[in-house]
């Protein structure tokens, strides 16, 4: 199965969940998502998602200068982001439960 298509629908909630645990910058979030099992995730998709979540008010952002090279842009979750995460987590639970049930049923026939 092409997991990139599946990822599209759930990248928002995955990114929110990762940032909710700890503030992170773009590539840091990518690394944590990959470490968490989403190996196929594209960096640019994650960066774009972070920007969009920030624009919609779910994330805060701050710049941390670096001595060695270019500055890093960190993202953190805020109250609106937590509300969004809670709602989407609930949706995902319901959805995955339904999918699991459906797929299991199909197996039994």
């Amino acid at each position, binding site marked *: 199965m092409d997991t990139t298509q599946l990822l599209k629908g759930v*990248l928002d909630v995955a990114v929110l969940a990762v940032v909710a645990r700890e503030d992170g*910058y*773009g*590539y*840091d979030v*990518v*690394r944590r998502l990959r470490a968490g099992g989403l190996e196929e995730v*594209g*960096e*640019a*998709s*994650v*960066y*774009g*998602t972070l*920007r*969009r979540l920030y*624009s919609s008010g779910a994330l805060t952002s701050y*710049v941390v200068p*670096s001595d*060695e*090279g*270019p*500055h*890093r*842009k960190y993202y953190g979750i805020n109250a609106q982001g937590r509300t969004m995460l809670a709602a989407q987590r609930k949706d995902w639970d319901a959805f995955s439960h339904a999918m699991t049930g459906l797929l299991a049923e199909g197996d039994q026939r």
Partner: protein
Amino acid sequence: MTTMLLDRVAAYAEAVRSHLADLGPEIADELTDGLEADLAEELADRSIDGAETADDTVLLDLARVFGPAGEYALELRSAAGHAPVPSARRLRRTPVRDAARSTWRLWEAWARRLVARVAALPGGGWLVETVPLLRPVWWLVRGWVWFVLLMVLTGGTLGAGRLAPFAPDSFVAWALLIAAAVVSIEHGRGRWAERRRIGGLLVAGQALAVLAVVPLAAAAWTSATQAHYYPVYASAGSDPVAAPQDGVVVGGMYVSNLFVYDAQGNPLHDVQIVDDRGRPVRTVTDGSDSVWSLPGVADPWQFAPVVDASGRDRWNVYPLSGAPAGEWTWDAASGAPVLVPGASLQQPPAPFGAAEALMGTGVGGSVAAAPPGGADGTVPDAPSATGSQAASGAPATPSEPTAPSGAPAQSPSPSGP
């Protein structure tokens, strides 16, 4: 990470940025803020993996690591919720567009390098951080430039007061200025960035504003410093051109000559006309080289004065005689106008040979006791003219039929239009 690699990363980020240019600088910057750090770190990660380090050229060509910058940008923008397909479909590639785009990219890269260099200077960091904060000021200035250009383009139909076109002085102009400012600010904030047609227009507007801002500001400055003089004209309440000029005005136009008729309607010649203060009433001003077109006469005419007994030129002796302008030339010595040899002064055509005779006058002939021309002293022909008027009871010479409007010609407020 080596400086060379950082340069490569910066170049790749630049390429990605250029593919986002249609979103407007604000959004493009926002999307790629911190991208260099992310790219550099990922590159470092992959180096540790060792997969791509075997061949340095692979590492240097970052497109082979991250994919083509265009695709990277596409993924970035669509994940960020911006229109995934940029200009390609609607904007056909043309040599001119390609040239413009590559020139623009060169400029942009140059500007970024310049900013980086400035940032490295002492105090440069502060400058680089502060100048972008002034962006909204530029938005307002740009709105003003657009406003002025619109005012100029509409040719003053939106308000043409003494502040125009640099400042609004009518309701419509105010509305226009506010609208231009709002459009400029919204454009600056990245609104409409994804709407191709408006976007192109606004980019053109930006270029126009950059080019026009300095000349317009200079012109506005000049206008503002000179504006103090305007109210003087404005409060005079009259056309400054028409204000203090001598002459006889009838029906809104200067007349060249006066024709005088006696009570019986017969034309009179060599009649001196003065106003109520005894000043000569003149139709033709000094120099007398002005030419006048006469009704129904093809060639314009030029007139000559009459010399009085003391040798002075008299211009208030009517009707003035003269000759068509073609028969005049200039005296080589004095520069005064003289007739060409063979030509002579003539009476210009009169409006009519004889005027209506006057009937039954109500006033006695006592005015004859107050002979005119006292101020001038010499009245060669006046007695006969006055004498005939005395019979009709006309009060004095200046009240001849054509004279009244010209009588106060030398007073400060002429009876002009």
